[in-house]
């Protein structure tokens, strides 16, 4: 169902990017209302900004909301990841869309919890979070500066894994589950020369019902993979702009 919704959103966004739906944004230079006897002056045509394409690499630092669970098993509630993505800018006015993939992982150790004490079991477990983002937003270029602010949101398709590498473990002890969430984000990017860009972004991910039920997340009553993410990006621009 969520896949269908995301497909619809993507299709709608693509539709608004159609030139037939493009609208001018310039205002008339005259302040007087036109006389009924005068011919209506032609509205000055504002050139539609050309589409711009970007490809970028990203580095994420995700501060997990399930902090107690991640601290217990991985020793930290921050997951570091990397990935790549692409954006199309100026789909309609300053609308942009993004597709990105990010992978975060961390080595941990299975544990026991006794109150506030974390007791390691001696058996390693690797945590993984792989996310496909499908989203977009609105860009706000700063006048006469190579910097643009932007804000947006999107859908997240997340795969969460726990992989046990010890000899006593069986495949049934591993976790591999897919969950859907959404995100809101804001950031800024800066053009570096003609082709390159760098950017930084703050993102809040909401991924409900991914945890809990079993494991230490159940003990801590932490049932989601929500995270506050700081992202750095280095990109390459394509297009005429």
């Amino acid at each position, binding site marked *: 169902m969520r896949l269908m919704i995301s497909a619809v959103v993507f299709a709608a966004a693509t539709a608004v990017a159609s030139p037939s739906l493009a609208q001018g944004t310039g205002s008339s230079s005259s302040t007087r209302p036109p006389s009924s006897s005068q011919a209506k002056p032609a509205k000055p045509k504002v050139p539609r900004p050309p589409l711009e394409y970007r490809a970028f690499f990203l580095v994420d630092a995700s501060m997990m909301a399930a902090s107690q669970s991640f601290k217990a098993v991985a020793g930290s509630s921050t997951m570091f990841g990397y990935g790549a993505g692409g954006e199309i800018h100026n789909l309609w006015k300053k609308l942009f869309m993004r597709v990105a993939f990010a992978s975060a992982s961390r080595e941990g150790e299975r544990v026991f919890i006794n109150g506030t004490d974390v007791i390691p079991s001696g058996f390693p477990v690797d945590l993984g979070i792989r996310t496909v983002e499908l989203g977009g937003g609105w860009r706000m270029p700063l006048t006469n500066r190579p910097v643009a602010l932007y804000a947006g949101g999107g859908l997240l398709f997340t795969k969460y894994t726990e992989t046990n590498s010890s000899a*006593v473990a069986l495949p049934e002890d591993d976790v591999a589950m897919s969950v859907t969430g959404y995100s809101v984000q804001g950031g800024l990017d800066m053009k570096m020369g003609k082709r390159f860009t760098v950017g930084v972004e703050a993102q809040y991910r909401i991924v409900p019902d991914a945890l809990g039920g079993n494991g230490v997340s159940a003990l801590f009553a932490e049932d989601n993979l929500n995270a506050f993410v700081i992202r750095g990006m280095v990109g390459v621009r394509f297009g005429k702009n």
Partner: protein
Amino acid sequence: MAPRRSSIRFSTGLLAAAACLAGGILVVSAAPEGEPQVKGAQVPNVVAPRVGAKSIPVPVAGQSPARMTLPVMSAERLAAFEEAAARGLDYLPGQVLVKFKPGVNRAGQQRALQALRSRPDASVLEWIGDDLALLKDTVQPDAGILSDQLAAQPEVAYAQPNYLMEIHATPNDPSYSARQWNLRAINMQRAWDIAPGGSNSVIVAVIDSGVTTVAAQNVNTFTWNGSAIVQFAMPIGLSPDFDASRFVSPRDFTISPSSPSTLVVDTDSHGTHVAGTVGENTNNNVALAGIAYNTRIMPLKACMSYWDRQFARSAAGTPGFTTGTTTLCSSDSVVAAFRFAADNGANVINYSAGSNSPNTAARDAIAYAISKGVFIAISNGNDATDGNEPSYPAYYAPDFNGMMSVAATGQTNQHAIYSTTNDHTEISAPGGDNSVGDVVWQASILSTDSIIGSTIFPRFDRYSERGKQGTSMASPHVAGIAALIASRGITNPAAIEAILRQTARDLGATGKDVQFGHGLVQPFYALFGQGIRR
């Protein structure tokens, strides 16, 4: 306090009652047909003098003594047990356990004792540990009255009758095919991949009817042959599925709580069966498997069988058969055993007995043991079909991080029909459910060698595989798994409880419930630990 008939505490009251009606037979299971019985080790004949002989050296576990005595309780102590059985009391008449408030000196104790009609001197108090005393009043047999009078004194923290507790098992004789389903049900094989049998640095105290720790072919013993007191040479022996080196610090507290014997002989089979589940020898081509088969067992006898009482009666020169066939665990012996285990290096205690009477002295002993770093597994009670009253001291389990009350399940992980359902239920383990043909098998004393009512000269040196059911059988599963956890270096009793609770497989209603507690114990995950999601 009105005399109160102890409820039948065996897991299926009807079975036990039927067994009693059919000639007073308590132990009804036998070696399966075609099952070879295994004879214990042979040692030179020894002579056991009558009660009171103190000069005879007492053997330590595993040694073959030149001379030894089969310890029996005093005639006075036996009389109390027999009177309790005859009157249907759940306490020893005229006996109370009293704890004085901190700082109360001898004069204060004496003042409190003056509240009793007999006005006993404080010197008659028999101390169990530092702060609990056993008082035997020869004037007032109603221990309820005695304890009420003492409890009303400002110097007294509490006083209670010396309650009798009963073991939570029923002997059975089911089909061979059911054997050791219990270990498969909790996936024990995977747990052994992590901790194969545990470590011999871990000690599990089994407070029960004892586990025989020495072999002797001819122990002179006295019994009643139906017309006269006779002396006979009784063989005793170790289970062939326990090496003598597995035992540490055996004690018999049924003889005297304050001065226990170091010679322990199981004349019931319950203690040996329970210890077998905790950790009888494994991978040795003998009998069956135990859970923590590399740990050491501390056999602490606190439960007295029919035969213990019969031997004491005859040794005291009293003609006839003793009263009552039930194996009983008096509170003074149990309390002393808990304290001994805590003071002598036990990491885990299993106690598979209880009664329906609140037992503050036992609660205090439990608190003491946990404070010394001992994890306790205790049987939940077998009264679901017999009034479903809570069992003490299992009832206190939720008050402690470090003690778990264990309910019983059957082969399909169903709630065993007899297993008490109460808020004090904390975890479940296989205990058998003979209503659907499930029992737990372990090596224990050959039942046909000591049938009450038909055997005149019992022997306790031959063993067979025996099937029993009860929360008595469930509890040692948890004790054995706790010993494996301790073998991995986690010895804090609160941590062990937390691990067992958190890794249990939820059964029945979601979350903790009165039938299964937190669920079925899962030894593999109790050793493997938890990830974030699983």
